[in-house]
């Protein structure tokens, strides 16, 4: 039976690898400016992980095949070099490999988090609340009016709690249920949580970041491809978590300008 086990392990290892090699189910193509190093990390890690996975499963299978069903008279052999070999192998092969991944991965992370947003980045505020995303654009005055949580009223579509009657900066703010951004323009996303934890995930954009109640975080990114994508919530926020999404439209600058004008008229 040992031989059956060995064969099964090898078959499972190879069959598991096939969808990965063929990219049957894979990440959506990257539409971001910062995504290339992330994708590179993913490919390198996949190669190293894949080789480790296949090698170790095959060695396991090989040893099971060879050393099960041996007769009592067979001598017991020791792996050449013994435990020392294994410790060295672990440090040298795996240790250096993972450290390399770690070191090279710093750049991909730094691109997202350690660079400041450009001065002319387009600010867009996103508010996550059970169970929808709403967006706010600052309007021609370029500034966002203050938020008044006590004024929030979903029934009156005042999702952010802005006071257009008393706050001059709020008068031209544009609140939308869909996010649109111009292509090739850096966006400074200001993230605000209304109630509980949520998260902002757009796979194509290579962006995922939690909203933290009590902490207003921000992200910045640039989309490089026109299209319609989905922003999905990935932090369990209650019963409607599965249906918490908004569309992100990446448009040409002109289309974006007319879209923004149209939305402004609907306020």
């Amino acid at each position, binding site marked *: 039976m040992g031989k059956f086990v060995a064969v099964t392990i090898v078959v499972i290892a190879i069959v598991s690898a096939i969808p990965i090699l063929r990219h049957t189910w894979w990440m959506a193509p990257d539409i971001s400016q910062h995504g290339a190093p992330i994708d590179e990390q993913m490919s390198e890690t996949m190669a190293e992980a894949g080789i480790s996975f296949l090698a170790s499963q095959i060695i396991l299978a090989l040893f099971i095949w060879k050393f099960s069903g041996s007769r009592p008279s067979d001598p017991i052999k020791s792996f050449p070099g013994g435990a020392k070999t294994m410790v060295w192998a672990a440090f040298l092969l795996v240790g250096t490999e993972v450290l390399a991944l770690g070191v090279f991965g710093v750049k991909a992370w730094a691109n997202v988090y350690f660079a400041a947003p450009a001065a002319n980045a387009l600010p867009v505020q996103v508010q996550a609340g059970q169970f929808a995303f709403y967006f706010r654009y600052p309007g021609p005055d370029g500034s966002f009016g203050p938020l008044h949580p006590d004024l929030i009223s979903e029934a009156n579509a005042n999702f952010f709690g802005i006071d257009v009657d008393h706050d001059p900066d709020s008068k031209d703010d544009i609140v939308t249920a869909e996010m649109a951004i111009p292509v090739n323009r850096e966006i400074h996303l200001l993230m605000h949580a209304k109630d509980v934890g949520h998260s902002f995930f757009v796979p194509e954009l290579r962006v995922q970041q939690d909203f933290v109640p009590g902490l207003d975080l921000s992200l910045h990114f640039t989309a490089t491809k026109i299209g319609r994508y989905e922003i999905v919530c990935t932090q369990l*926020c209650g019963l409607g978590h599965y249906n918490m999404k908004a569309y992100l439209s990446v448009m040409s600058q002109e289309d974006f300008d007319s879209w923004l004008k149209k939305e402004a008229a609907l306020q």
Partner: protein
Amino acid sequence: MHEMSPQPHVAHHVPPTGFIRKHIFSLDHKVIGKQYYGLALVAVLMGMVLSWLMRIHLAWTNYPIPGLHWLSNTGAPGNVMTPEYYLQLMTMHATLMVFFVLTTAPFAAFGNYFLPIQVGAEDMPFPHFNMMSFWVTFVGFLVLVASFFVSDGPTLGGWTQYAPLSAVGAVGGPGEGMGVVLWASSIAIFCVGQLLGSLNFITTTLDMRTRGMSMWRLPLSAWAWFITSCMGLTAFAVLMPACILLILDHVAGTSFFVPGNLVINDQLQPHSGGSTLLWQHLFWFFGHPEVYIAIVPGMGIVSHVLITNMRRPMLSHRVLIYSMGALAVLSYMVYGHHMFVSGMNPVSSLAFSFPTLIITIPSTIVVLIWLGSLYGAKLRINAASLFALGFISMFITGGVSGFFLAQPSIDIMLHATYFVVGHFHMVMGVAAMFGIFAGTYFWFPKMFGRMMNETLGKVHFWLSFVGAYAIFMPFHYLGLAGNVRRYQAFVIDYMQPLIPVHRFITVAALATGAAQLIFLYNLIHSRFWGQPASDNPWQATSLEWSTPTTPPPHNNFGDKLPEVYHDPYQYGVKSSMGDYVMQASPEQVPSEHDEA
């Protein structure tokens, strides 16, 4: 001659009389171990049924599931599962499995039964604490199950219970009021039980070893339980106060985890000053060591089972021990890898990622030592060794997916997707379970004096091994494609093409689940009608196989505690018994692999 043993006498020399003292409120570590096993069995069956319900709903959302409304009419009106009920079942599935199965069976059940015997003691030094540890854990279980019966149902916040959702109370959603209070109470109670247990394990290992049993001569399973209990003492000691703070936020008007200015249902919430991330730090400081608490006993058991079936010791006994110890120590430094995109300082994310990558090294050493020890061995194939080998395969797979999750930049794409769910199910839901199975098939004869049915065991292995891969490998593909986790249904456009994969997984899950019934039948049937077992059916060396009777007598070794003459794994020698010499046997043989 009067044998002087160095260890203190335990209070309860006298065997108990009466049914209650023998089987219910027993001070005997063996009974307590079996009670823990029984608890884990009930919990795993519940957890498994919950997973079936979840998988059926994911594959065929909004189809009525016949009879479901009897489980909960609010949760499944007309037998159609509501979104909140899915999340509630998911939370209970995870909580039952992580706490009442994976911490309970490999550690509390087998550890309680076999640690005292493997060190050569009559019992643990604090039998009353030990008894309390089980009953307190059992109360924790009852409190958890009680949440099914409150009007709003159990909490829906996942076993991770992130604040503020978990802390704002019933306004957060169904189950977020009483359900959370019961969950947090249950877990706090569980922590107390496990602290009492860890206390006993540590003192047993350090103080109760019989003559000749040095620390290095302890079997690997004993070392694994010892290391795990050290982790338990520190990790559960953090989770318990965290749960208490959470309960206070619910019942005492505090705001440990809830900041101000939150608006739910258009109402400003009456909280201020709390920190959302504080819960995550407290929880994961416990949570990461917890997953090592779930796997290290399995490593010990699998090593122990494999050695007996390879007829040779591991390439290096001490390196394995050092590696398990390194895993335990490093496990406290990596917890932030659950929080890479949580909003904590991105520099912290990098800081946590390096120890996470480094922890690969002791894990790799362990796997390589196993593989290297297989080389040239005389491998016996039986149900126990099959599950031990399966453990290695699963642990490799689960470990390798960790390479990805250890890197923050890649985690941007994989966090909160099915990739993570696949990773932890591989290591916990499968590898750790295989460790439990290996231990069961191996130690059942000693615990019950009967052999389990080998054929059924092998069938159980094949169906579980192939089935588990069929279920959980596809999770990784789904995750790469961006399938978000904890969704009760897939209504997102880009996830539509993934639904057929979910259907495949569900069918595999139901089939593999059904296969576990073979194990259950085998357990019950063998318990009463299995072939009688000898004292040492596996020709093994450690002290549990030296007991005068099988099952062992009340004080484990009869009148005289054993004296240890050998390292734990003297296989491949020539002795009067064959190719092995038992630890307690005074027979001197030339030892090939003596290291101690």
